[in-house]
């Protein structure tokens, strides 16, 4: 039953997406509002150079310097910072930095965590026991501390600070999560009759994993990944706030901007901190809504199906009544 036509190849994805199409009510509302907000920020991130009025570290236009710590005005809708940069520009480019780091971090975490979980769950044995011990130990540990220590160690190495450091710090904190989820699911799927049957028929482990286990398990990943992305943004902002993230001349980062804004705020300057803060809240809320919406539609416990019409075929002989 090899996939020959493109349509046939898409079938598993279509099958997986079925619950989404069936969603209704609150779950649907969450799904779509979450998607809308997330898409908004993705657009901001991708098209930053065109959307943003200025560059993130631009301090003058022509030869006229921007005012320092200026109130929001028509020229600077969100005001300016202590370095005479435009706050709105920093918020928009900040979206780019956040998404860049989070996408890299999650991709790395998936690439490391999912295969490890698959292999560990399917084969079991000593490898499984060992990995489970390590991952469980890490999993219980506060993410922020792991990320801080890694970011700190990396920042004094040749990698220096910046996008890659932050991404690696976040990856290390989240690999145990993916490992755990995938492994647990693999273990439950492994005992299913159809997988047993495939093994009895002589299918190699690789085939079994690829055809039967992988797609089944992977269906669980999107809601977790989006909720995880939401967490990762908070983690990145926390790193930036503590000073372990990206330096101002490398890019705009919301957490770092809030850090600098803290001293402004006590002087009555609210715009340098409020807008990056709202951006974080909005993006994380959007991702969480998206993730929860996915969870509600895919997770069978919470799922509520929309009832479709069922038409019964008329009885052959209507006179026959019980």
């Amino acid at each position, binding site marked *: 039953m090899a996939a020959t036509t493109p349509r046939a190849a898409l079938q598993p994805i279509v099958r997986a997406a079925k619950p989404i199409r069936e969603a209704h009510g609150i779950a649907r509302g969450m799904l779509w509002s979450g998607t809308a907000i997330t898409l908004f920020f993705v657009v901001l991130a991708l098209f930053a150079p065109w959307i943003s009025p200025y560059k993130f*570290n631009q301090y003058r236009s022509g030869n006229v310097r921007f005012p320092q710590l200026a109130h929001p005005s028509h020229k600077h809708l969100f005001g300016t910072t202590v*370095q005479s940069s435009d706050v709105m520009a920093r918020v928009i480019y900040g979206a780019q930095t956040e998404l860049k780091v989070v996408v890299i971090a999650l991709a790395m975490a998936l690439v490391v965590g999912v295969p490890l979980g698959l292999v560990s769950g399917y084969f079991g044995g000593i490898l499984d026991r060992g990995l489970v011990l390590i991952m469980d130990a890490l999993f219980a540990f506060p993410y922020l501390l792991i990320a801080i220590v890694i970011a700190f160690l990396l*920042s*004094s190495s040749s990698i220096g600070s910046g996008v890659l450091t932050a991404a690696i710090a976040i990856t290390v904190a989240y690999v145990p999560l993916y490992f755990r989820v995938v492994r647990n699911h693999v273990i439950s799927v492994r005992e299913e009759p159809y997988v047993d049957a495939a093994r009895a028929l002589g299918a190699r482990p690789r085939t079994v994993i690829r055809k039967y286990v992988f797609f089944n398990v992977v269906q669980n990943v999107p809601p977790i990944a989006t909720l995880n992305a939401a967490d990762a943004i908070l983690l990145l902002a926390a790193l930036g706030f503590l*000073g372990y993230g990206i330096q*101002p001349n490398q890019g705009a980062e919301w957490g770092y901007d809030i850090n*600098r804004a803290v001293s402004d705020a*006590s*002087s009555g300057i609210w715009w340098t901190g409020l807008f990056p803060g709202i951006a974080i809240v909005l993006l994380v809320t959007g991702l969480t809504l998206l993730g929860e919406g996915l969870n509600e539609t895919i997770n069978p416990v919470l799922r509520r199906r929309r009832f479709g019409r069922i038409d019964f075929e008329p009885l052959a002989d209507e006179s026959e009544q019980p």
Partner: protein
Amino acid sequence: MDLKWSSRRIVLVAAVLASLAAVAVVAGSSLAGVSSHHSTTASSVIVDGTTDTVVNIDPANEYDYGSFTVDLLIFQGLYGFPHGAKLEPVLATGCKASANLKTWTCGLRKNVKFSDGNPMTSADVKYSFDRVLKIKGDQGIYTLLSNLKSTTVSGPYTVVFHLKAPQSTWPLILSTNAGYVVEKAKYPFTKIAANTDPQYGTGPYELTKFSPGQQAVFTPNPNYWGPKPKNGGLIINYYSKSSTMKLALQKGDLDMVFRDFTPTELSSLAKTKGIVVHSGNGVVIRYLVFNVKDAPFDNLAVRQALAYLMPRQDIASRVYHGSVQPLYSMVPKGLPGQIDAYKTLYGASPSVAKAKAVLAKAGVQTPVPVTLWWTPTHYGDASADEYTEIQRALNASGLFKVTLKSAEWAQYSGALGKQYGAFQLGWFPDYPDAEDYTVSFYQCGAFYNNQYCSPAMTKLIEKERAARTTGARIAALKAMQMLAAKDLPTIPYWQGKMIAVSKSNVQGINGTLDAAFYMRFWELSKS
């Protein structure tokens, strides 16, 4: 197991805890109003906030300003600056040098007692100096005594210092924290006392309580030989962020703040009712160091171009809003012997034309790619803005392409010239004399490893050290400053005012803001 019971239990416990907490909060908030009545007895106590940190209180191993602030209140040395930037004998009655300037004999003040009532004698003085050299603490304060060969006593009130090389400025060394006198019976000879151990000194206060990272509490020393402090005591509160400190000052939890607010916060405080920003002549400097053997900084023309382009005025006004002033020599204004050497050679304001000319003459291709290093928190948040300004000015000239790099202080301070070609540093004085702003920087093997070693400069240093008259010393210092401006191992760019912020009812601060760079808390009072 009855699930109903277990969950009921949980709810019950949670409810009890929650209501206890609620009661405590409500009762507490109403009672907190009462606390202000209790504090009237403590109304003469000054509460000071700072973002400095205390590393070691034991004077044998302290070399940072936060620890120094504490020690200044409880210890004293043979000399000091009790009334401003004039060197005066404190625990000594006077010191006389031998003809070859290698032996110094000092008489000690009688009737000086430590805070526990025991009298101070020459034995305590000798013990203190021997101890510093024996322990060789990791903070490096013992390096200030590098010229001391040995200390001997001659009777209970006379101490003799035997130096390795002639030094006319030895009393200045006696005024540094390396020369603080501790009670012999109470301090171990080979170990540093812990910060939470009781401390015994001859100063105007004693340290009654020290909570690391939080508070230091001082009460007047009942056995002090000098005039009583003008206040009933002092509490220093430690903060890690200046913004929380600012809020505490505005709400009245603090009476004053000494070190350090960001420039934005200072501007805002200056406009706040009931708060006064006091500023006086400061001697803190900020400068850029070059590793003179590291390309492209090994080329003198490159360093000269940078000297022509340094945007001192922009930094002073845009970044610091006037709380610093442009600096044209490593020696800050206010110290005798200071000359604006860099202004003489490179002009008061940046000149792109001159920079261009000097690079063209040397055949250097522009724009020159350079990397400048700075540190984000040790010198305050404004460092980021400071170096952004420098980068902007250099890039805008078209002659340089600047990459900025930063590292946290702990790593930064260990690297400096060993790893960086050009880097930011600041300096506060060991003692307020031009010697401390020249010799430490220009000697071969200077602490920051910038590989500058000039025989001409070394000769001038020896001349200054051995000078027998003030005139000769000043002449040597001026020559050193001009030579340094020519050789460009560093470029100084600002000198900071000494700033303290207080509520309007605190008196005496203006009298203590001077080139000595001491905050003489014992002169402050509240009305």
